[in-house]
């Protein structure tokens, strides 16, 4: 005897294909999620105790990166300015702007300002600012147009994939040493040619840049 109504034929086929598409779609969604700002935190502005504007200090006042990030050329760690660095100016200007109260408090009570880390790599990935800066990787290559950021945000996903992209073909991103801290540097038309020269000039061991030890210990 007939167990199922006619409609089941359609239903059964639809459901089979439906399941396939759903599974596929799900995988795709997961794939996208892991590259989305939700996971990578790219383009996400972090709350900070003081709404510090890189835009203002870099573009308007024309401060050089190294004025605050002093150790960027010497050390793995670029360095976050000590409160006294802020106070060099802010003991004269904006002396009683409420925005800067945390800075003054820090100076008064000798308590550090606790910033929220914007570029936070996993602890098992060891990044060295010095070597990048000294070999011609510009600030903007990783940090984006900081001079256009009223509030600091991470510009790139900073996934391993992303790091490797450059470690595989540094020539696409390298720039002359003198332009490393240049915010307005734009790659020339012959970037690849330029990059290749720089690789030679800087003795960059391209073949070894993807070795595991480069980042993991």
């Amino acid at each position: 005897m007939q167990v199922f109504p006619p409609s089941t034929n359609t239903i059964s086929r639809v459901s089979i294909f439906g399941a396939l598409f759903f599974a596929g779609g799900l995988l795709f969604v997961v794939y996208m999620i892991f590259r989305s700002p939700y996971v990578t935190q790219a383009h996400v502005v972090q709350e900070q105790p003081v709404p510090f504007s890189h835009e203002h200090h870099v573009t308007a006042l024309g401060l050089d990166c190294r004025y605050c990030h002093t150790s960027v050329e010497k050390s793995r760690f670029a360095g976050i300015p000590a409160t006294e660095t802020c106070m060099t100016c802010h003991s004269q200007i904006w002396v009683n702007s409420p925005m800067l109260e945390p800075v003054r408090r820090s100076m008064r009570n000798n308590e550090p300002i606790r910033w929220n880390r914007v570029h936070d790599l996993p602890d098992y990935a060891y990044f060295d600012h010095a070597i990048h800066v000294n070999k011609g990787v510009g600030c903007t290559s990783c940090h984006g147009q900081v001079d256009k950021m009223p509030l600091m945000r991470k510009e790139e996903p900073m996934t391993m994939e992303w790091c490797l992209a450059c470690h595989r073909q540094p020539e696409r991103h390298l720039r002359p040493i003198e332009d490393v801290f240049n915010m307005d540097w734009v790659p020339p038309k012959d970037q690849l040619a330029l990059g290749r020269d720089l690789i030679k000039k800087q003795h960059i061991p391209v073949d070894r840049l993807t070795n595991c030890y480069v980042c993991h210990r």
Partner: protein
Amino acid sequence: MSIQSQMTNGIDLAAVRERLAGQRGPRYWRSLEELAETPEFQAFLEREFPNGAPEVLDPGSRRTFLKLMGASLALAGVSGCTSQPGEKIVPYVRAPEQLIPGKPLFYATAISKSGFPVGVLAESHMGRPTMLEGNERHPDSLGGMDTFTQASVLTLYDPDRSQVVTRRNGKISTWDLFLHEAVRVLNARRSSKGQGVHILTETVTSPSLARQIKAFLEAFPEAVWHQYQPVNRDQARAGAKLAFGRDVTPHYQVAKADVIFALGSDFLAQGPGHLRWARDFASRRETLESMNRLYVVDTTPTITGGMADHRLPAVGHRVADFANFLARELEIKVAEPGGPLLEHEAHWVRALAKDLKKNQGKCLVVTGDDQPAVVHALVHAMNQALGNVGNTVSYTEPVEHGAVDHQESLRALAGDLDAGKVEFLMVLGTNPAYHAPVDLNFAQKLPKAQFSVHLGLYEDETAALCQWHLPETHELEAWGDVLASDGTATIQQPLISPLYDGRSAIELFASLLGEPSRPGLEAGYEIVRETWKARSDLQVGIDFETFWRTAVHEGVVEGTSLKPVEVKLAADLAQAPMPKRPNDDAIEIVFRPDPTIWDGRYANNGWLQELPKPLTKLTWDNAAQVAPALAERLGLNNGDVVELEYEGRKLEAPIWISPGHADRSVTVTLGYGRTRAGRVGNGTGFNAYLLRTAAAPSLGSGVEIRKTGRTYLLAGTDLHRNVMAPNETGEAAAERHLIRVATIDEYRKDPKFAQEMEHVPSPHESLYTEIEGSVDRIDREHGATLPASGSGYAWGMSINLNACMGCGVCVVACQAENNIPIVGKEQVAYGREMQWLDIDRYYQGDLDNPETYHQPRTCMHCENAPCEVVCPVAATVHDDEGINNMVYNRCVGTRYCGNNCPYKVRHFNFFHYSKPKAPSLVVLNNPDVTVRARGVMEKCTYCIQRVNEARSAAQISGNPIRDSDLKTACQSACPTRAIVFGDVNNPESQVSKTKADPRNYGILTDLNTRPRTTYLARLRNPNPEIETESTHGV
């Protein structure tokens, strides 16, 4: 902690002897179990869970052990691969000058033990010391390190250190309250010129402290300064007095000696100058031409005995007879000996005497601090007779201040305490309540002091009996100064401001004497500076500031070493009576400081507790060591608990059978059985001080050994690996040529003996063509790896078995540098220890007096690494410089690599060993090394973090990496420079040169693994008169 049976029934040592006798050719053996093939042993093998596995595997008790171990488990600042919460970033308020964030700074200072220092460069990351390197300028260590110094950085962060001032009734108090109280009491004593005021310290070399004690004694003329430490130089001092009529300290130029006779002395591992002596000794075993020869007579097997070309075991009481006999051979008038030597001994000593005479002025006789005074006197006489004085031996005034006889000094204090004469007692950094001679009953007398205060790192046994306890600063926390054995001064600078409310001894004195008002660090700074301002003789032509800055920066104060003094043998030694010999069948008991926790002061240091002891390879416990022969007679076995009865006092201890131990003698090491050491140290081992009397501090006779029938779990890294190996390990080790030895004659005949022992497959035997570029060719001649030209850096290591003494400092250095957690006794016993370096100890030959060989074994960084091929996720792969990278955060823990590694150098985090345990340990971690999570494989990385730092520095500066720029942790710690690491591609590098040496060989190279780490074969320099037939090497 469970008592688990190691072995129920006897090893048939007779059978073992036969087996050894029947041996043709060399065979190595590692533990007695392996030599015994008794049915009982087999039965034991079949028993489920040897070594108390069930406890380990039951989570319940695992947690308890973790809790216990907690104190020393490194904290996981990172756990490989777990997504981390949002991080804060905290800048300085005022940035310290000369500090570059993210770059470590190195400060020269010194870490001392009982007054004598090892010079170090302390690595500081953003203001926190994480690692100690040797200071090459320091005369006593020349850049080498010993285990105690290396591990002291862990003590700095030990959460069990005392943190506040406390009163006996446990009330937390403050420095001000204490000072107020103390000063009141002292002032009350001024009228009586300080009668009843007593100070107890260890040996003091610090000029500043000495200066203050002097000042104190001036303020209180009647006050008494006592000194006591359980391991002291009383006998040596007495010996010097006996020989020269005054107290002088001998200094040895080991490097100048062609023939050395160590009479009951472990001079390579003990004594203020041992690091330097070891270096000098090793330096003379580099080449055939320079080979020196070492004779050793000792009771307990020692590191020095292990390095000997000829060793004789002798019970402690007969050491004097050897001295006497040798003296006679050297035509020195001496009294009647306590007893004669056996024939083979006599023959041995005669040969030795001949050898010494042959090398007049180029030989050296040394004896141990714990030998009787007369032996010291005789040794001085011999060196005189042999014309060594001025060549290999020189004498200076004692380095320490107010040198006294410690035994007497403490006895006096005990007397006064008993008589109730002590109204003010200040104990500085020593722990008599625990380690005073048992017959002084010091612990009972101490409370009789009317006012007593204890200054120490820990609230220890003594602190518990004093009215006040004051937390002491660690040497990395305070200003200070110390003198090396030759008098060279080091100014100690603080690396970090005191973690707790501690003060140093000199700061304490400062406050008591009311001089500079400011407490703490500044006070210490002031005092030390004043001390050195006073030494105007050192500042001719330079102003003090320059002098001070150089002194602090260099870590040594130039020109402070003592000038040798003229000595002449005073009395006719024939008058000096030789010690009487107890009746021969009495069993003697020998007290020795423990090789890893010394007199007990390091009991709470997990690194040292878990460090396998150089010869016994035991961890976490001491044991009563006996000779195989004695064990045989008494039917004893490893782990059997025996009752030792000595002079009416009883003590229970597990037995450890030490091959090469003197018969009729049992050795116990001090320092264990602490009750107030801290969470790590409490309850480990047994307290040997309970048998140690003032009369016989190092050697007593007439000890009774009774079996209790119980057994005790001893966690020996050697035992647990070989317990199941009846007889095979030795043969296998020989067959596989892991250790390669030759006498210098054999070596002369056949310099390539080491390389002829293996077949290295040629590349054509592979299915694959080698991977382009990175893999370096193998040199068929040498079996060593020589790099393909122009392939950039190629890192490699070479370990010189001729220099390695097996002291184990490399293991601790590695542990400190690479954030290696300790795992606790049960896990070690179960074979899960994490140290990346294993030092394998092999014996060869006679059970009663075997030769000892040490072989450090760690990742060989094979060019054709078997581990890499089997990793399913590419977590361990090769880089282009030939280092076998281990990417922890990619590891999923299949452990396939561990199985496929022929060298078995991979260690697995079976549990979360690195689990955070104490906040203070957070900062101990090396920020450059990932802390490994649970379920992750780890192994030696050639200190990849250092390679990386060096590389990026080099790439920025543009100069290639030189040997001097890059040292692995083990390499820089090694006192004998046995470990060499560097760029194999650079023909100038030391490592390439070493690898070109014909003695260079890799192990298991016939597997075509092409290890980057290779060894230099061991050479022996026997005296043909003693050694007739040779069964060594090939």
